[in-house]
């Protein structure tokens, strides 16, 4: 339960509204408990041969009081439940804002589905506590007290007797809710198993068909499906109890009232109207009895969910500004130095970069090539501070990058990542994504136009139905791999930082287009430091310096001609690519 204490600050924000809500609950219940009393009076007066205006008085009292109580009921929901939605909103905002601060490592180690589950299911469970559970606990408490008080005022003995079955009902609802929750969780777990089985089957359909295993797969699925059926039946067995037990307990209360109350009426100790009022009050107590068990369950579930949320809130962002940060740095020229840099992803894993020493002068173009897994991407990920180095340091303009404000560093780096990620938005918004704080519309449009020209997107845009305003991605048109890569190049170019990183981002572009883009980029790269990673020699051959990474170390270094003369890894890659081209042309 302790985890729910962290909700205090949210409640504090809406203190007045919540207190007002409690007041409405109080007023609503205090008025509504009078209805059975009016009915009692009405019935008792009937025995005394009253006139019809008197009857109208009672009838309109009943309606009037219900109306007043109803107005308060309306206000209760408008205050407390509405507040719960507002707290849910605040909580989700805080959750998201926290997520945005977490570093790449967190996202690589956590499944998107898990994060989503916290954001939806857990926040929802907490909302159920903040709203319904809080509202009903106060509501049922006051209703219970008022009703009981009035029942006592009519007949103390009968009240005690009629209440006998109620503890049974409360306890039953509590255990019932708990049991159902467990059974339901089991069903859900099995549902995931069933889903996983279907998924696995469909993914492996080729092998299943090749080995003619359709029948056994069907049998296997039938078994799982039957187990799922059985688990549902288990829940039904318990579920089906609810209603019968409910009306049995209520019914036995009514029987007690009828018998003892009836005897009292016969003996003249109770009026018929009072008996009717008692039966009606029983109806008022049913809900509090059920709600008691229900609220307990809701609160328990919310506590568990809040605990999970708190553990996420407790994760410290790995990469952030610290007390080392020098906020006087507000722009960069782009001179990069790797000084004895070693890096590994985790303590027990092997190093992916070993003792790298490299100086990249401001304004030059360096290229990195090497086999898959040689450390190319890690190299540039360190530069953008997606991770921090394990040993050594990286300097830009002579500053250790850990002292450069993260905002300044990222503003100055235009990074085209290997895995292209575009948002499902218009092409224009995607390209303009990095144009922060540009107010002049001309400048804004000019930057976009220029970026589109450099990334050679003009012919593509002309073919799109709505040109640059075309929505891409899930909700729009699907771009080809090459188009995606070129769009992300345009996005980086439009941003225009001092350091340009191209991480294997021309792989899906054909060689002709690649050549156009590279020559377009030449002017842009003037005055900027560029690092180009590629598998293709054609992409990098014109770089000022080419670095061949092999197993985390710099194996070869030099210009295209120098490396060819070296007759090492680089020249072997070159030969192979020549052959590939030849084959292509046969």
């Amino acid at each position, binding site marked *: 339960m302790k985890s729910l204490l962290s909700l205090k600050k949210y409640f504090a924000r809406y203190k007045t509204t919540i207190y007002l809500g409690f007041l409405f609950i109080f007023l609503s219940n205090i008025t509504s408990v009078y209805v059975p009393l009016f009915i009692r009076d009405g019935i008792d007066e009937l025995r005394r041969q009253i006139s019809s205006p008197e009857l*109208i008085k009672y009838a309109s009292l009943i309606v009037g009081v219900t109306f007043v109580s109803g107005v308060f009921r309306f206000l209760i929901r408008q205050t407390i439940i509405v507040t719960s939605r507002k707290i849910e909103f605040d909580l989700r905002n805080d959750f998201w*804002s926290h997520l945005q601060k977490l570093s790449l490592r967190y996202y690589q180690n956590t499944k998107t589905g898990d994060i989503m589950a916290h954001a939806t299911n857990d926040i929802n469970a907490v909302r159920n506590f903040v709203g319904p559970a809080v509202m009903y606990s106060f509501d049922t408490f006051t209703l219970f007290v008022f009703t009981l008080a009035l029942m006592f005022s009519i007949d103390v003995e009968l009240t005690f007797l009629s209440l006998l079955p109620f503890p049974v009902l409360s306890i039953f609802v509590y255990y019932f809710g708990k049991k159902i929750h467990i059974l339901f969780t089991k069903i859900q777990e099995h549902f995931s198993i069933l889903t996983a089985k279907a998924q696995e089957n469909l993914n492996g359909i080729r092998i299943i068909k090749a080995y003619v295993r359709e029948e056994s797969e069907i049998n296997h699925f039938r078994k799982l499906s039957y187990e799922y059926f059985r688990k549902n039946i288990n829940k039904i067995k318990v579920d089906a109890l609810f209603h019968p037990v409910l009306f049995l307990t209520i019914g036995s209360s009514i029987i007690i009232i009828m018998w003892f109350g009836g005897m009292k009426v016969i003996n003249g100790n109770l009026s018929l109207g009072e008996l009717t009022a008692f039966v009606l009050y029983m109806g008022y107590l049913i809900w509090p009895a059920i709600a008691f068990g229900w609220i307990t369950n809701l609160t328990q579930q919310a506590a568990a969910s809040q605990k999970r949320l708190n553990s996420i809130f407790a994760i410290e962002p790995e990469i952030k500004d610290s007390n080392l940060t020098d906020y006087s740095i507000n722009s960069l020229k782009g001179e990069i130095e790797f000084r004895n840099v070693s890096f590994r992803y985790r303590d027990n894993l092997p190093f992916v970069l070993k003792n790298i020493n490299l100086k990249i002068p401001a304004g030059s173009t360096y290229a990195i090539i090497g086999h898959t897994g040689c450390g190319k991407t890690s190299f540039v990920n360190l530069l953008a501070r997606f991770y921090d180095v394990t040993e050594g340091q990286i300097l830009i303009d002579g500053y250790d990058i850990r002292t450069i404000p993260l905002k300044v560093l990222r503003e100055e780096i235009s990074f085209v990542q290997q895995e292209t990620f575009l948002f499902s938005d218009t092409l224009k918004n995607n390209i303009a994504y990095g144009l922060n704080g540009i107010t002049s519309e001309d400048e804004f449009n000019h930057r976009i136009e220029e970026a589109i020209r450099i990334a050679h997107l003009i012919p593509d845009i002309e073919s799109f139905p709505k040109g640059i305003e075309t929505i891409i991605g899930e909700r729009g048109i699907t771009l080809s791999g090459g188009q995606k890569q070129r769009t992300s190049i345009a996005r980086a170019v439009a941003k225009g930082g001092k350091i340009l990183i191209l991480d294997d981002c021309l792989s899906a572009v054909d060689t002709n287009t690649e050549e156009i883009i590279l020559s377009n980029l030449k002017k842009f790269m003037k005055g900027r430091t560029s690092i180009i990673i590629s598998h293709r020699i054609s992409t990098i051959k014109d770089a000022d310096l080419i670095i061949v990474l092999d197993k985390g170390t710099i194996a070869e270094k030099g210009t295209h001609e120098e490396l060819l003369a070296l007759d090492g890894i680089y020249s072997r890659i070159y030969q192979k690519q020549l052959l590939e081209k030849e084959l292509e042309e046969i």
Partner: protein
Amino acid sequence: MSDFFQDDEVIGKAYDSRLMKRLLKYVKPYRGYIFLAIFLNIVTAALEPVRPYLTKIAVDEYISVGDSKGLLLIILLILSSLILQAIIEYAMTFATQYMGQKTLFDLRMEIFQHLQKLSLKFFDKSPVGRLVTRVTNDVESLSELFSSGIVMIFSDVFIIIWIFVFMMVMSFDLALVTMSVIPVLIYATFLFRKKVRANYRDVRKHLARLNSYMQEHISGMSVVQLFNKEEEEFKKFKSINEDYRDVNIKSVFYHAVFYPFVELISAIAVGLIIWYGGGEVVQKNISLGVLFAFIQYTEMFFRPVRDLAEKYNILQTGMASSERIFKLLDTKIFIKNPENPIVLNNLKGKVEFRNVWFAYDNENYVLKDVSFVINPGETVAIVGATGAGKSSIINILLKFYEINKGQILIDDIDISQIDEKELRKHIALVLQDVILFSGDIKSNINLWNDQIPFEKILEAAKIVGADSFIQKLPKKYDEEVKERGATLSLGQKQLIAFARALAYDPKILILDEATASIDTEAERMIQKAMTKLLKGRTSIVIAHRLSTIQNSDKIIVLHKGQIREMGNHYELLELKGIYYRLYQLQYKDQEIGV
């Protein structure tokens, strides 16, 4: 439930008689249950309204005249009606839910079985995720319709009818007066439902927006951070979150109005009973007990009326899901099977392609006029660059797809004359990416085939050399394969796939060699295993290993969908053509490696 990826969220019309008829077919095997449930319904529906009637008798005939024995009798009657109702209701709820779940089970199996029959052409076009949704979530959303929907409609209707009957019997006039509030109740309920439904749609829409925003930005978080967009993205998130909050608050409003309003209607009904009924009592037209019973009835008929409106929603979601399910069941993309299939006896294993043309889409041919013969027991290596058409040869030989022109023959029998399953019984396939299923190691070798006993599994594993590492696993052959074999190395997975193929002991073996590099130790093991596997069978290998090529009887060089060169390793090298270049590109390095 992973309900975030609400693809195809369609809310169709509430009732479609064509769909309903088809759905009812699934209930047919259980119609006994249904009739029983409906019958029990009629009985229990009467038990609830009978109690106020009994209390009326208690008030008028016993309490008023002071007859305590009579009162006791009535109390016992009420008690037994309670117990009877509890028992019947439990049994009935159980029976209908049982039937509902059983129906879902049947439907789920039918979909799954149908999927197993569909040809690969269908799977190429359909994302696996969506198909999984049909089998699981869509079936699940029919649950309410089957288990409570159909039967409970009867229950609600009968309760209302019985209440009317009892009220009419006691006092026709007062019944009419009391029931005068019902049209208002029905109207209010429908209006409320309509508003809530429209609002619910908005809630779903905004929730989907919120979820897809989060999903997308969690995947692209590095881009957000790289472009310093945290603040701006937070603003966007906040505005989506705000919309979601506001539609929810709107729904609070509807509930806040509706529930007190229903209370008010009920109070009006009670007021009417006091006013009109009271007058009748004064005039001695009805007794006090009737008044007493009527007040109880007003409490009673509100629930079923409200529930009936609820059922509309159940129907609606049911219709949308069943439409999608039936669409899948109506998809009949199968491989044409011969009318008089030939059964392969004493297969020798000769494979022949005769002028085969094949296109996945009937337009762009990936294989053009391919002809070759493989004699029984021969090993043929197929080489070529990516996209040359190598895997297509596998796909059509196994009859995963039908060819457009030409013939494929096995032992000189055209495979179009052979049933697809009969054909595959004689061919084993080993894919590049080894597919492992959740289950233990031994089941991954025999694929749950009882005809392959454990001895045979063990033998196969020993021959290919998988036995040695399996023996080292904690539970040996009973070790569970987790996450599709994530805990096994690439080489180990390969060996399991080899053991699988060997255990099935096929006449013809098709093998797509793995490209990914494995360490030399594993490489040596796999090479040894391969030699044993290929021995005595007709084998077609999409080769990535130099040793495989060198050991094969014949090499077929595919280039852009055509056979360009054929022969053995040395003959082809001398040609200095495509093979020569491929060799230098892909295989030459291996000479130094091994």
